[in-house]
């Protein structure tokens, strides 16, 4: 019998300390399993050093997903694997290479190919050609492929995005390829969580808004999985992994209120008694009392609003264009309905003045929020914000190292310094906001203390797991594949 082609998929270490299993590589793993590949998924955030395991697996294709801050880890891993397996094809996908494909390939010789945009159509196509399963087509013709021609990076026209029907056809993520019990313990889901076995689900892709700090990897066209398909996945996760909370990773869950109502109705009818949370902020002008009421009935306990700035001028700079009065009204409404309510604020946006920062922070400090994060603007490559900073020479020295491109909540080292706003101004603004929001409010101080204790406990319990792993590798239970419904 002919041996199966082997593909290893890896999520490299992300330095921000927040860990979530990566849905992108899991969707690709599902598609490759369906095509008969031998697939293994590795996660440096869970497994630590994965290079020895990847080398032992001896894949023909090594697929690495990476956000900007993980580019360094991705290249280090690729180098380790390539030293031992020089024939392996290293393919990088994800947000960073989608934003700056040519630069990434030109500056990192260890990467053989990159894929921009959604790779559900293109990665299996590339794997078929790299492993010799399909020799009818040339490798460089794959849409969205960045490859080298005479030593220089060349980018093919981007692939189209998946349609609604194609989204339904993507298999549910084959979670049995990952150590789920450890993921339940180590994944982070913000300040407030109720469940202990939390799984991510993505029900829509894309976002039609123009926020200039976002690299919108999944495009402008808002695409929806069918309600039946989503409900099928939730039921499957409940039956297979006994989940007690769903973490919706949609970019903007309430973008289509009618569809949000329909999905929440279906969750209520399903009646599994599980909690529901949203990973990303909801647009505060896209909710109303009826929708919030439905969320409550569906098991939502925390609502995070992506307000980003309380200054109308900064809102305009960001092209977020939120009605701040309506946003404040909806925050108060959600709070009055018994939700825990959070929001976040970006400060130091290119073009923002000290007066804007003051106005913004005062806006948030007047809201009845339970949690609040103030982060300095991270000018992700490929975004309008990054372009502005690069053009005007506003990037600090720290911005020359992509390892620093992540949101630091308590330790502030800005990547941008503008004539209107110095790094010192930013640090003072953030410190003052946290002191006023958390430490001058006993309830919120207690909350932070609880969170710290919980984090310490989680870290301690993961050390226990690592020790157990070293002592006896069979200690970690893995859910095996027969139940996997492609």
């Amino acid at each position, binding site marked *: 019998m002919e041996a199966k082609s082997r593909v290893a998929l890896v999520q490299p270490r992300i330095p921000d300390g927040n860990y979530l299993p990566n849905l992108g590589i899991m969707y690709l793993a599902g598609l490759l399993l369906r095509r008969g590949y031998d697939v293994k998924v590795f996660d440096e955030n869970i497994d630590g050093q994965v290079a020895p395991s990847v080398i032992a697996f001896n894949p023909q294709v090594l697929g690495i997903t990476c956000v900007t801050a993980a580019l360094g880890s991705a290249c280090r891993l690729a180098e380790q694997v390539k030293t031992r397996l020089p024939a392996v094809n290293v393919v990088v996908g994800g947000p960073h290479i989608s934003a700056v494909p*040519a*630069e990434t390939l030109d500056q990192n010789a260890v990467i053989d190919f990159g894929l921009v*945009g959604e790779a559900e159509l293109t990665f299996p196509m590339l794997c078929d050609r790299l492993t010799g399963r399909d020799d009818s087509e040339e490798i460089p013709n794959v849409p969205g492929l960045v490859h080298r021609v005479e030593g220089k990076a060349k980018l093919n*026209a*981007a692939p189209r995005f998946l349609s609604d029907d194609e989204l339904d056809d993507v298999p549910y993520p084959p979670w049995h390829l990952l150590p789920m019990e450890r993921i339940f313990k180590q994944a982070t889901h913000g300040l407030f969580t109720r469940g202990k076995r939390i799984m991510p689900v993505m029900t829509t892709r894309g976002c039609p808004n123009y926020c200039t700090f976002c690299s919108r990897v999944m495009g402008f066209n808002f695409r929806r999985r069918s309600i039946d398909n989503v409900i099928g996945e939730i039921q499957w996760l409940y039956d297979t992994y006994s989940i007690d909370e769903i973490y919706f990773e949609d970019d903007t869950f309430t973008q289509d209120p009618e569809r949000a109502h329909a999905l929440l109705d279906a969750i209520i009818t399903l009646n599994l008694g599980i909690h529901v949370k949203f990973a990303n902020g909801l647009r505060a002008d896209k909710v109303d009392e009826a929708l919030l009421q439905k969320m409550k009935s569906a098991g939502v306990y925390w609502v995070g609003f992506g307000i980003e700035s309380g200054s109308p001028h900064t809102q305009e700079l960001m092209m977020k264009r939120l009605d701040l009065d309506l946003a404040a009204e909806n925050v108060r409404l959600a709070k009055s309905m018994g939700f825990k309510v959070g929001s976040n604020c970006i400060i130091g946006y290119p073009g923002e003045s000290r007066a804007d920062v003051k106005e913004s922070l005062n806006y948030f400090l007047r809201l009845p929020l339970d949690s609040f994060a103030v982060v300095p603007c991270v000018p992700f490559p*490929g*975004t309008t914000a990054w*372009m502005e900073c690069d053009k005007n020479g506003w990037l600090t020295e720290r911005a020359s190292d992509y390892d620093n491109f992540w949101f630091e909540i308590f330790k502030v080292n800005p990547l941008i310094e503008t004539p209107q706003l110095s790094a010192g101004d930013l640090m003072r603004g953030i410190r003052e906001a946290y002191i006023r929001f958390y430490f001058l409010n006993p309830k919120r101080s207690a909350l932070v203390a609880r969170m710290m204790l919980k984090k310490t406990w989680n870290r301690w319990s993961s050390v226990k797991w690592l020790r157990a792993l070293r002592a006896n590798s069979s200690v970690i239970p893995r859910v095996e594949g027969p139940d996997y419904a492609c």
Partner: protein
Amino acid sequence: MHVKIIEGCIVCRQCECQAPDVFVIEEKAHSARVHQPHPNGDREADVIQAIKGCPVHVIKLKRDRVPATVD
């Protein structure tokens, strides 16, 4: 049909998302660029979608003149 981009692009990537075979982002130039200035007629709907979606109105489209026919 002739498509061009004038100065002022903010690299929001909307055009690339709508018509990836027509528009491409030029990383170093900080701008979108027309990859295919004369796309086929069947791409017109996507190009128009990109023009409508452009927040800074920098995408310009000139339709080919249809020569008058003499019966």
